[in-house]
Structures are given as structure tokens and as C-alpha cells.
């Protein structure tokens, strides 16, 4: 029993990271219908920023987690630059060009990091120096609670932002009809840039959460994390913010439970099979809306 609860706790922690990354995918996909492959590398950028700024922060006598502010700033800068330099010129060239450009940007960031930081993994200093609780034989690190609450808070804040504020309403209007949004005075380019900025900022927060559990950064750390987070976004219904959260938690839980109870060597394969099955049975995802195709 305690093993089960322990797995649930670990799964929720893992799921919160997936969910936060999935939010970034879902926002960008929702607005410009493009899989932003580079999103996973924004997490890598965030992690490296954390690696380099945490010692500075600690040296200056501030708590380590404050370096997430720097990470957010760096990630937003990278995200907005990528969008402006690479994605904007191909935005009207069709989905094929967009996908290849996204892939190319992902390769670019990964290999740039390889050139700049080298191939050796870097170990991130401890971010939260919080105690670990032991209740009835269950190990509950307090940082897991912090991670989970950060994730929930982010999702709620984002949800309210998109539903209630003017900017959020504009963000929902653009994918519905670009021309009509322009007509009612929405600056489409600005909205897309904002979306990228928010998505990349979320990636930095996700990097903080990821590094607090797995304090190691490599140049390709984002690839698998990104694919799994994308699976989470698809599972929950792409374009839907609560869907991303739900999908992330589900994928995280499933992964840990399968790893513990079913087949440790196969858990990744099972996650990917889930994606294929979901796409076949319900391509719109759990919370997504089914949209027919116009002829």
C-alpha cells in the first residue's frame, strides 16, 4: 500500500512537470497550429541558466529559487527571438515548412548548447533546501508539494488570464479567425509573440521544477521530455489549458505506475502506445473539441 501511495506521489510530481511543459505546447499549437519542437529546448535553456545563475544567487545571499526569474527572462528572450527570426517568415508557407523550421530550430538550440556548454552533463545545485517528511513509511519530500502547487497555481493563473483578460480573449480569438481578429483591432503578430513569450516563460518554470527533482542538465534533456509533454497535450486535448494539466498528470502517473508495477523496461513504449491509441480513438483528446474538416 505504501508503495502505491509512494508511486502516486512520484507520479504527481512527474506529471506536474509534464503538465507545465504541455501548457507551452498547447498554447502555441492552439494559436498557430504548429508543433513548436523548440519548446523542449527552451527547458534545456532554462536549466542551463539555472545551473549558471544559482551559484551567483547563493553567493549574493539570496535564495536559490530566485534564479528562476533570470531563467524566465532568458527563456522569454530566446522564445521571442526564435519566433521572430525563424517562425514569422514561414508562417504563411504551410504546415510542412512550419514543422521543418520548428525541427530545425530545435536542432539549432541543441547543437548551439553543445558548442557553448560542452557534452558533459552539468549537475544543478540544490534549489529548494526543504526537509523530507516521512509519514507511515512514505517518503514525501516537501519540494514535491512545492512543485505540484507551482504547477496548479500556474495553470489556474493561465486559465483565468486566457478566459478573463482582454489579452487572453484576443489570444483565443486569433486561432478562430485571423482576418476577423485583425478587423476588430487585434494585433495578430503581437498576440502570437505574447503567446510565445508566455510559453517560453512556462518552460523556464518547468525547468526549475524538473531540476529540483532531477538535478542534471544535458543538451538533449528536452527531447524526450518534450515528446512526452506533447503526448500529454494531445491526450488532454490540444489547445485546452485544463486539458494539458490533466494530460500531464495522467501521463506522469501512468508512467510511474507502469514502471513500478508492470514492466520497468517498457514504460516508455507504453506511454507512446497510449498516444497512438488516443490519436486513433479520439484525436481531439479528452477535453478537446472535435472540429470537422471544411471541404
Amino acid at each position: 500500500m505504501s508503495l502505491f501511495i509512494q508511486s502516486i506521489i512520484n507520479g504527481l510530481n512527474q506529471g506536474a512537470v509534464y503538465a507545465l511543459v504541455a501548457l507551452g505546447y498547447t498554447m502555441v499549437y492552439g494559436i498557430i497550429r504548429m508543433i513548436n519542437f523548440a519548446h523542449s529546448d527552451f527547458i534545456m535553456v532554462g536549466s542551463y541558466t539555472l545551473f549558471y545563475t544559482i551559484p551567483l544567487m547563493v553567493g549574493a545571499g539570496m535564495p536559490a529559487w530566485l534564479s528562476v526569474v533570470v531563467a524566465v527572462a532568458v527563456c522569454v528572450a530566446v522564445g521571442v527571438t526564435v519566433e521572430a527570426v525563424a517562425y514569422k517568415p514561414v508562417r504563411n508557407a504551410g504546415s510542412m515548412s512550419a514543422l521543418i523550421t520548428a525541427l530545425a530550430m530545435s536542432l539549432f538550440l541543441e547543437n548551439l548548447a553543445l558548442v557553448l556548454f560542452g557534452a558533459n552533463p552539468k549537475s544543478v545545485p540544490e534549489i529548494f533546501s526543504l526537509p523530507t517528511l516521512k509519514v507511515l513509511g512514505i517518503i514525501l519530500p516537501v519540494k514535491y508539494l512545492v512543485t505540484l502547487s507551482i504547477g496548479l497555481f500556474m495553470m489556474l493563473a493561465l486559465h483565468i488570464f486566457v478566459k478573463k483578460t482582454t489579452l487572453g480573449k484576443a489570444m483565443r480569438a486569433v486561432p478562430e479567425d485571423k482576418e476577423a481578429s485583425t478587423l476588430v483591432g487585434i494585433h495578430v503578430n503581437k498576440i502570437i509573440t505574447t503567446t510565445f513569450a508566455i510559453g517560453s516563460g512556462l518552460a523556464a518554470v518547468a525547468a526549475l521544477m524538473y531540476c529540483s527533482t532531477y538535478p542534471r542538465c544535458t543538451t538533449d534533456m528536452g527531447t524526450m521530455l518534450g515528446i512526452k509533454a506533447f503526448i500529454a497535450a494531445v491526450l488532454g486535448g490540444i489547445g485546452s489549458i485544463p486539458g494539458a494539466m490533466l494530460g500531464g498528470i495522467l501521463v506522469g502517473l501512468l508512467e510511474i505506475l507502469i514502471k513500478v508495477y508492470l514492466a520497468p523496461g517498457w514504460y516508455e513504449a507504453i506511454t507512446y502506445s497510449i498516444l497512438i491509441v488516443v490519436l486513433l480513438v479520439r484525436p481531439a483528446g479528452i477535453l478537446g473539441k472535435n472540429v470537422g474538416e471544411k471541404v
Partner: protein
Amino acid sequence: MPEKMKKNYFINLIGIILVFLVMMGIFDTGILGAKTNYIMGIAIIAMMTVIIVCSLNLLTGYMGEFSLGHAGFMSVGAYSSAAVTMAMINAGITLPTVLYFIIAIIVGGIFSAFVGFIVGIPALRLRGDYLAIVTVAFAEIVRVAFTNFQITGGGKTLSGIPKVSDYHYIYIVMVICVALMYMYVRSRFGRAVIAIREDYIAAAASGINVTYYKVMTFVLSAFFAGVAGAIYSHYLTAIIPTFFNFMKSSEFLTMVILGGSGSLTGSIIGAAVLAALPEALRDFQIYRMLMYSVVLVIIMIFKPSGIFGTWEFSLPRVLNRVFGKNQKKGGAAHE
């Protein structure tokens, strides 16, 4: 004009044999001295890459769908063929090398085609981004499977595969594969596939069985990727599942796009150049993928159809142009 076609086939055959003779002249006489084996290795990897990149171009260029999991098909071909030839050797069957090679590529191709069929059927309901993600997922499933199966080395390097790949055979296989693919895209089937790329709803409305053609192209593409995998494993004699990762798949896709989606000429040149380039630029190894990605973005912005677009090289046409006597104006009729 069967007479003219016969003549063109003949000219192409002569061209192919000439290239073959040049290669034999370089490698068999050993005029490169100590470097012969090294250069030959590069040529073999380049020829294998040509096959897999052309097969990916069938999907990407002609059907307009992505596969970001072609390394997965390649690994299916590599492992299945290795398993069969190793089992044959263990059973004490001794055959001439060429038979081993033929068995390996056929087994690799068929297994990969079968897997392509299994992936292709569900993938039919999906297009574009979603299909691309499904192929990524598939390639990862294959990788995890090969890391777990005992017969594939269980995550460790599978070594002891007989070294039967030889550049003579590989060249012939490459020519046959590329010729088959070229004939496929120029045939009735290929035209249907191109129609699906242009507008699948209109194609379906004109009586093209979209499902059938999509699965067939998927299976064919997987078959040739499997052949390339078999060549690969029987040349290197040792393979590891992590080699066939997402990065490898995206590298193949890069080659297709740079060469020109919809041009087999582009794929051949793109694959040969980009596969040989890392060897030439050993010192700049770390900058290679960085350069690829920058070039890829630039190409996407300025010439999305790739360097060669849909242009195809034709030896008879070149000969006509060079020795062009009493030739009609404008050779565009061939295009």
C-alpha cells in the same frame, strides 16, 4: 515512343555501368593507397544513406506526409536481417557471401515493410503534425523494444553480424532501389500519390482510393528503409538501438528537405554530400548539425522546395543538350 524509351534506358544503363567502373577503378586497384578502405567506407555509408533518404522522400516529397521515425524502420531492417543471418551462421549453413547479402536485404526489407504496414494503417486517420508525432512515437517504441528483447542484444551492442556488405553489391542494390522508386513515382500509382499530396479531398472525389495508396507508399518507403538498415548492419557488424534515435531520423529528413522534396536527384545528391561531409570536416564535427539547422531555416525561408525543387537529372537529356544535333527546341517535354 517505345523506341526512344529503349534508347534512354540503354543510355542510363551505360551511365550506371560507367560510374560502377569508375568506383571499381578507384577501390579495386587501390590507387588511393592506404586510404582506400577509409574512402570506401565513406562511399558505402553514402550509398546506404541514399537509399534511406530516397525512401523518405517517397513519403515526404511525393505523398506530402512526414515521417520523423525513419530511423525506426531502418533499425527494424537492421536487427531483423542481423538476427536471420546470425541464426543461419549458428545453424551451420554456409552460403556464398552474395546469397547472405541478398537474404539479409530481403529479410530486412520485408520485416520493415510489415512494420510499416502496421504503423501505416492507424496512421491513415491522421495527417500532418499528428502523423509526424505518431512516427516519432513508433520509432521510440521500436527502440525500447530492441533494448528489451534478448535476441537483439538486450540494450547492449549486438555484435558478430557477418560482414557481407560489399560496395559492389551495395551499388547494385542502390541502383535497383532508386530505379524502382523512380519508376513508382512516375507510374500510375505515383501520379495518384502526387494527386493525394496536392489535395486529398479532390483526389478522393476523383475516385482515387486514398487509403490504399497511402498505405502502399508507406509500406514501400518502409521496405527501402529496411533494405538500407540491412546494408548498414551487415557493413558495420555491430549495432546499438540508441543509434537509431530521433536525431538520426531528423538528420534524414534534413537531407530530404535540403536536396528538394519531390526530387530523387536532390535526395541522392543531398544524401551523398551530407553523408560524406562529416568525414571531410572531421575537425568541425561539433558544428555540423549547427550548420545543418541554420541552412535548413534559411532554405525554408527563401526556397521551401529545397535546392533542387522537383527537378530531376536525366542523362539522355544532358547528352542531347551536349551533342544536340537536329533537336527540337525546349527539352521540357521530358519533364
